[in-house]
């Protein structure tokens, strides 16, 4: 894994276009899977992952070799994806007529089983969207993209203790959002 990342960084420094094609091949599974968790919808996930890759490429154009050599590609790419997703949510909120990610006050009470055919889980996506951004980012980096806590902390630019606390608060909030409704309530 580390070997792969080192090779990819060298490839990017050597030839940005060639290197980036290799980055897409290596990380598209991760970005598509993460995007599917965030959007809960196949076409939206493909749009989001493709847009995130292009945004990453545009950023890399201005990076010098030293900065590329220091990049933690996995965490960086997922962070770019999360930022792109946040912009999509904002745009969808500003322009509700456009189809986009629904942003409920609370997630739908009965999540139902995940869609097996498309592996999409819209209820989980809605619950993630309802989290405070920093908790969503922390949960996604840790438990969707599978970064370790130091990786999450680096990606968020916070200390490890803070990262851990964002992850655990985010998970707790998710559990509440996804809990079955209390039938005894009026």
């Amino acid at each position: 894994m580390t070997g792969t990342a080192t090779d990819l960084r060298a490839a990017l420094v050597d030839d940005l276009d060639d290197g980036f094609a290799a980055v897409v091949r290596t990380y598209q599974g991760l970005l598509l899977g993460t995007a599917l968790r965030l959007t809960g919808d196949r076409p939206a996930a493909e749009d989001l992952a493709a847009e995130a890759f292009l945004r990453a490429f545009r950023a890399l154009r201005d990076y010098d070799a030293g900065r590329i050599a220091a990049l933690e590609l996995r965490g960086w790419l997922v962070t770019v994806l999360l930022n792109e997703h946040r912009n999509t949510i904002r745009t969808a909120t500003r322009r509700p007529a456009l189809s986009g990610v629904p942003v409920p006050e609370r997630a739908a009470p009965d999540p139902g089983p995940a869609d097996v055919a498309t592996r999409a889980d819209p209820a989980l996506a809605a619950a993630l969207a309802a989290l405070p951004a920093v908790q969503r980012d922390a949960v996604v980096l840790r438990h969707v993209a599978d970064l370790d806590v130091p990786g999450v902390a680096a990606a968020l630019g916070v200390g490890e203790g803070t990262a851990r606390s964002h992850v655990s608060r985010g998970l707790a909030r998710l559990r509440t959002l996804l809990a079955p409704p209390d039938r005894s309530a009026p």
Partner: protein
Amino acid sequence: MSDPLLARLDPPDVGKDLTPRVVDTFATTRGPLGEVLVARSAEGVTYVRPVDDDADHTGFRAEYRRRLGRPLLPDDGPVPAIDARTRVDLRACSPFERDVLDVTASIPAGQTRPYGWVAREVGRPAAVRAVGTVLARNPVPLIVPCHRVTKADGSLGRYMLGEAAKARLLAAEGADLGRLAAFTTAGVVLIGSDTTGIACLPSCHHARRITDAHRVPFRSAAAAREAGYRGCRVCRPGV
């Protein structure tokens, strides 16, 4: 992973190759004037430039990176020749640039329109210079026919592939360049018909049908207006 929430967060394998959507390709192919360099996305042709002498096409690729901001690799398959019907992808353009290119694409083959006409048609009649700038850096020349846009006096003006190429393209499309040049020399920018009271741009196909006896030349739109002429609804000369 016994926690069901963590299992649910675990990303699925979507199993889809995004490469065609993210990485564009380029190759040398045939255009109306010979070989050109053509870059394509999954949506259409994004960039066309004259062939260069550099085997690596370093300048072309650097310009593509700067302007389009998308990764670009050599195309390994056969690339179809380009012409005015080739599908383009103009997502990298600003709305104004797209408007200018759309209007330019509406100019019929073999006909010409001045920069000011394009500015009027996009609803920005004062933006003549800006139109000139957009067309001078047209990402897809030969497909979007910026060679059909001329100076205000009807003279051909500059072209990315050279003024001679502009004339060759128009001649190949059936434009009567000698006739148009004669109007330019005489300072004539509009032609009216005294039987219909309608004024056209000289290359409009309605203008070509006006017989010598009924042809009334005008040096400006204002002059045509003062003479009581209205503008042709096909070439919309701004009268």
